[in-house]
């Protein structure tokens, strides 16, 4: 087959694929008779209301000297790891607000960090294309730094996100600017499987975010600059289980819904969306007109029940969405003693009692119920 024939063939196939994709989209649209908010409203549900003490800033964690880019809670203890542009990972005690570890990173341009399920080690990844693992109990060197325990190298682009597989401290999934996600074996430092990439069908652009299904840790979702989210099965690396279209910009953040059957996304197009992994449908768009410019969503998190969706925007807002009615019920960014500037990362504690936000003002803040509990 000559080159021209191949090219013709290729363009024909591309057309077919696009055609099919369009038809699929049409079909989906025709099947989508309602969204969550429409249905909830028809059922007479009302939005959650927030009292003045229902969510207050109760701790400020100061200690970074650069923008905070990422944070993660431990699954059990009240510890938080945060990654900042000052080139440090700090492990915090969320209760006392004190630093437990301050780890100086070999590469200061860190984008993501994660706590292992056991809380024994932390991982971080960044522009150096390497995911570094630090064992917190390893002895410090003479300058008091925790040494790198293992370097997971092999990505050909920046490591945009990393997350440990729940209940498996030995496995970790990273998403990267080289359009792939990789499942790593931390103990050996080798790739277990690669999702997407040059010779497989996967994301067509940088992967920006990943999230592992909390109830079925074999499934994880990834969001990418190609404006799609993809669902993967860690046992089937060759192709994505499903591709979710809908966003009109980079998918900056992705997070599984607590029940594991849905996931939420936050995008450069200023919207958050909720997708169902079983049907592949888009269930809801969360979008509010901010005025003229549309601030991109930078990070999202769900409350433990799933009723609330916390979404940080590039303009410094941090909306609390009622997921049922698609209404903004609170703007954390405008609350008293909130961050100055952008809220860049969000995380809910494992028991759901506290929300931690990290911002470009170098601080982390912990938000929780601030009133008196009636028992």
């Amino acid at each position, binding site marked *: 087959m000559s080159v021209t024939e191949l090219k013709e063939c290729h363009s024909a196939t591309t057309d077919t694929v696009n055609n099919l994709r369009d038809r699929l989209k049409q079909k989906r649209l025709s099947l989508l008779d309602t969204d969550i908010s429409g249905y909830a409203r028809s059922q007479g549900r009302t939005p959650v209301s927030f009292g003045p003490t229902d969510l207050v800033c109760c*701790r400020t964690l100061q200690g970074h000297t650069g923008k905070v880019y990422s944070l993660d809670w431990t699954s059990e203890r009240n510890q938080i790891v945060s990654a900042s542009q000052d080139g440090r990972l700090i492990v915090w005690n969320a209760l006392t607000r004190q630093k437990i570890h301050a780890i100086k990173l070999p590469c200061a341009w860190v984008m993501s960090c994660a706590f292992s399920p056991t809380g024994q080690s932390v991982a971080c990844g960044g522009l150096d294309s390497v995911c570094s693992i630090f064992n917190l109990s390893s002895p410090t060197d003479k300058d008091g730094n925790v040494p790198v325990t293992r370097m997971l190298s092999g990505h050909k682009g920046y490591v945009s996100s990393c997350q440990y597989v729940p209940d498996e401290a030995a496995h970790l999934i990273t998403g990267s600017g080289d359009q792939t996600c990789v499942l790593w074996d931390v103990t050996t430092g080798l790739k277990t499987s690669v999702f997407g990439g040059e010779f497989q069908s996967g994301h067509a652009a940088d992967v920006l975010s990943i999230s592992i299904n909390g109830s079925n840790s074999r499934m994880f979702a990834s969001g990418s600059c190609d404006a799609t989210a993809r669902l993967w099965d860690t046992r089937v690396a060759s192709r994505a289980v499903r591709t979710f279209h809908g966003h009109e910009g980079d998918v900056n953040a992705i997070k599984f819904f607590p029940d594991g059957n849905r996931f939420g996304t936050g995008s450069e197009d200023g919207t958050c969306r909720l997708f169902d992994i079983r049907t592949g449908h888009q269930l809801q768009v969360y979008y509010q007109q901010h005025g003229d410019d549309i601030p991109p969503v930078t990070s999202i998190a769900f409350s433990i029940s799933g009723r609330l969706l916390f979404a940080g925007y590039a303009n410094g807002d941090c909306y609390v969405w009622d997921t049922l009615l698609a209404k903004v019920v609170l703007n954390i960014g405008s609350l008293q003693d909130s961050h100055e500037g952008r809220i860049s990362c969000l995380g809910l504690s494992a028991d759901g009692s506290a929300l931690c936000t990290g911002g470009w003002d170098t601080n982390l803040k912990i938000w929780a119920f601030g009133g008196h509990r009636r028992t």
Partner: protein
Amino acid sequence: MSPTPEYSFAVEYDGPPLGYNLPRAVPISVDNIPVASVVSQVSSSDTLSLPVVQPLLPPQQQHHNHNLHRHHHPVNVKEVRTLDSEPRVSKELQLASEITVSPTSVIAFEHRTSQSNVCELSGELSSSGAFEFSNGNDGEFSDLGGSSRVPEESVGGGTGSSRTAEFSDSRVLKEDGNESLDFNESNRQDWASNESVLSLEYPSTRVSSLKGEEFDARRTVAVTFNVDDSDDASEEEFDVEENVTRPVRREPLTKGKKGSCYRCFKGNRFTDKEVCLVCDAKYCSNCVLRAMGSMPEGRKCVTCIGFPIDESKRGNLGKSSRMLKRLLNDLEVRQIMKAERFCEANQLPPEYICVNGNPLSYEELVTLQNCPNPPKKLKPGNYWYDKVSGFWGKEGEKPSSIISPHLNVGGPILPDASDGNTQVFINGREITKVELRMLQLAGVQCAGNPHFWVHEDGSYQEEGQKNTRGYLWGKAGTKLVCAFLSLPVPSKSSNAVGEQYSNLASRTIPNYLEHGIVQKLLLVGCSGSGTSTIFKQAKILYKSIPFSEEERENIKLTIQSNVYAYLGILLEGREHFEDESLADLKKRKSSELDTTGTSAKLDDKTVYSIGARLKAFSDWLLKTMVSGKLDAIFPAATREYAPLIEELWNDAAIKATYGRRGELEMLPSIGSYFLERAVKILRTDYEPSDLDILYAEGVTSSNGLASMEFSFPQSAHEETVDTADQQGSLFRYQLIRVHARGLGENCKWLEMFEDVEMVIFCVSLSDYDQFSVDGNGCLTNKMILSRKFFETIVTHPTFEQMDFLLILNKFDQFEEKIEQVPLTTCDWFSDFHPIISRNRTNSHSNSINSNPSLGQLASHYIAVKFKRLYSSLTGRKLYVSPVKGLVPDSVDGALRYAKEILKWNEERPNFSLSENSMYSTEASSFSP
């Protein structure tokens, strides 16, 4: 020129705006209304979302309109070009050529006047309504096809940039619903951009005309650049703090009774409390965590964070209290104490320390604290320091310690520094009685009030005499005597002082100092622009061990697998050539068959055929390559295949293919460098040389970010010229190299580099005839791609006030290439018409009198192109430096130039305008 009918269209179009008296203002207001309706009709009659594609499909409908626009603008463009850009550029080139011939300012001045005429003229032209309008339409319709695009791009830098601005405008127009409003907006913006073109003309011509005289960069720059240097800022910070905060030491407010907790007002003076280091507030154990928060600077109230500590509490820094230990766990306490000791705010303010009567500067304090043998427990106060012997003491007192000598700290020592009255002098200081006693006990002859000269090793001599009289520390008793008289003795480590001081730069700097001292340089460029070469070159230049063993091993493997990849390309080419020549052969055979009628046996042997064994290997290699597993298999399997490769390389077929390597597009130009060394490289004992490493692709790890810290070694002549450079050696630079891809789509992660001091943007000069696939899958000129990337980075909000140094890399390749391939191959450079001197043969000699070579002219032209683009985007000056990435001195020169620019920014406020003209920032940039 265009035929008359079109011209009449233009005239017809110009008709409506009647007020010809004020061609500048009137067309806007009049155009606003009629033009708005015309164009918005066009776009609304098309599908709303994609008006760019539509016009080609229904030509009848809008035929009229299109004709109008399309035929209209070439007229203008040509006018503009002939009047504006063409003469200017050629003049500049003349200028450039004349600089070297005779740098008299008379000619240059003439040029300047003539140029300013041109530029006025062009200014008038562009401000006239007709031009403006056509320009506006350019943006709308240039996507129609190549026909309208080609002439349009020849307009020159200024208009080109306004066009891109309009692209974005028109997109805004489509996205929004309200059309008339939008149009107004776009029209307004159009004006704004046009104005920027106008304003651009002046600075750019001014710059270029000044170039004729002596490239005075600073004068133009002084107005626009206000990037302050971090070090400068930190000094200022101290000043500010002193003025504002220090006198007002925060006094805590307490309403409770004396001795109670400042927060809950409970307890008494006997309850355990923690004290704020700044304001002296005391908190009980219940309140301390709430009041002090996460203690990022140690034990300070939340409100006191950032304030300098109470000096009387300096001794307590880093000493944990029982209460904290009770409240927090070990690790947490340790972190707090570490922060307390090392955070910037708690460091000793330099001006609190006077040495020999001079308050210290920031750098001096750093020098003092980081010398191998620093004064212990440095507290604010007045000190004297004997630089020759290293004696150190409080002013008016006997020496308290012996520190590292020869530190460049404070002023010269005063005779009465230690307030002695013995009339015996050591290194110009009148010593105290105790010291005199010590000298006497040590057996030094002190009769007749001698003046001693004591060196750091304890050897002493009388002033004005050559011979050493003895060693102070020579006798064992001396130290005992000193201990008895509580005089200092040299510490053991001070012996190696001299050599330790010399490699001051290579020692690690404590974290809290990093902020003011490390200056970050970001090195970016499109792939293939040679950023990695420059990075590697810098490593080789400034690092004593550029690559560790491990790195070298990795480099070796990378080079080896690269060679396999090149071989693969070669083998692929061979297959292709074989097929080709076989087909050729067949054709010839068949034609022979026809004529002769004899059935000759088809002999499928050609020059490109190889033996069966090699064929098998070749097939296998190609298969591995296609499946993308080359990286996985190869470096490991080298030992096995090396002999085969040798055989392959010596095969005639491969040699023949290699001869035709020019036809193998996939083979990078550096491929041949490695292929010719293939046999050597694929040996297991191969050790890559520095040159190999420089040539190699993809040596920096996995295309991620790479950074290195370095400081410029002092060259001999620099030391004599610049005494301030001694402190300059303290400055560390961090070169951060990022791949264009590494910044993410749309440079998403550029915001992470907001703290860099300067961006070094790398462009490969030899890219002007190269093509590459861009994001949309179109084949685009690599120079244009570079320009696009440059625009994106320059206009990125993160880098609003950033200095840019443009490195025009691969100047050596470019000089060769330009002789064969004209520069006009690249659309952007279509108006490059160099004046080629008649005696070209002399041009390669380096004498000053010769004309610049074509390569120099062209690189100058490209530099001007980029400069103009930059100033149109930012209104500032772009620094440019042509570089040969493979030549160490060239890279060194460019990086030193970067240092100079940074230094200038720092020192600019200290210089008056008249002084500025004495220096030339451009001088070092044009010494290729």
